[in-house]
């Protein structure tokens, strides 16, 4: 599951360049064209997914803030805002986007033992 498809896309595209020999002795280096990935499945074109964190009376507020900063790279103020939303409203949407990335975030949050879920945006 946590096998982000973008990694496969990156390796399929490769980073190689080709060289075109011109009349001059010096070959002209041209970057290989970046081919649009052909992996746009129905799923990828689907609605985005939310990464939701739910309230937990055990996890410390300072700990949750630190985890949000680390996982999402949010500045402290934003991380604290989300932490307080979780605390007061019971849940907060931390991120929305493609499923693979959302899965990766949820995995990281579970690694820090937060109650996190993936939810399809309605």
């Amino acid at each position, binding site marked *: *599951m*946590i*096998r982000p498809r973008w990694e496969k896309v990156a390796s399929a595209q490769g980073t190689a360049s080709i060289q075109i020999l011109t009349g001059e002795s010096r070959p002209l280096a041209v970057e290989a064209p970046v081919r649009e990935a052909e992996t746009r499945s129905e799923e990828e074109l689907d609605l985005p997914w939310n990464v939701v964190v739910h309230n*937990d*009376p*055990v*996890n*410390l507020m*300072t*700990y949750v803030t*630190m985890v949000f900063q680390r996982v999402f790279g949010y500045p402290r103020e934003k991380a604290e805002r989300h932490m307080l939303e979780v605390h007061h409203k019971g849940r907060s949407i931390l991120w929305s986007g493609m499923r693979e990335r959302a*899965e990766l975030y*949820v*995995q990281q949050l*579970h*690694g*820090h*033992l937060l*109650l*996190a*879920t*993936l*939810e*399809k945006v309605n």
Partner: protein
Amino acid sequence: MEICRQGDALEISDLDPFLAELLRQIPASANPEGSPAAEQRLFTSPSDSKEKDICKEWKMYVEPELRRLFRSATETVAADLVQLNGKERSATNCTLRIPAAHADAWLNALNQARLAITARYNFSDGELNDHYRSPIGSRRDLSLFQVNFYGFLQEFILRELESL
């Protein structure tokens, strides 16, 4: 008990035998074995039951990774706790040094232990916020104290990480 930063380590000094014993219990307390409630809390579902595929794949691919991660954290903590070995029957206070590089493992293991204990005893929000309850009384009271003591340690470690 005193906690302070000493170079590359966090030092818990003047640790009395009772608190030293609570620290020794971190790895065992973090182990959810034998408690379905603790197991369920440490390995929660990533989605609601409607998303069956997600939950199935999660069980298959992610959960084993999480188990490895959690085990690695408790093993690191257990290795640090070896410093307290041989002092179990001593009435004198001792010192524990936690290398700063192990701070994340400690945070993780302490969290595992707090969550597992809370799930085992099904502590209410009211109980969790009762920081003045005496640890002497029942096993439940002692476990609640354990949750709060581990939380206090987490707060200290977090504060030190911030100052790095």
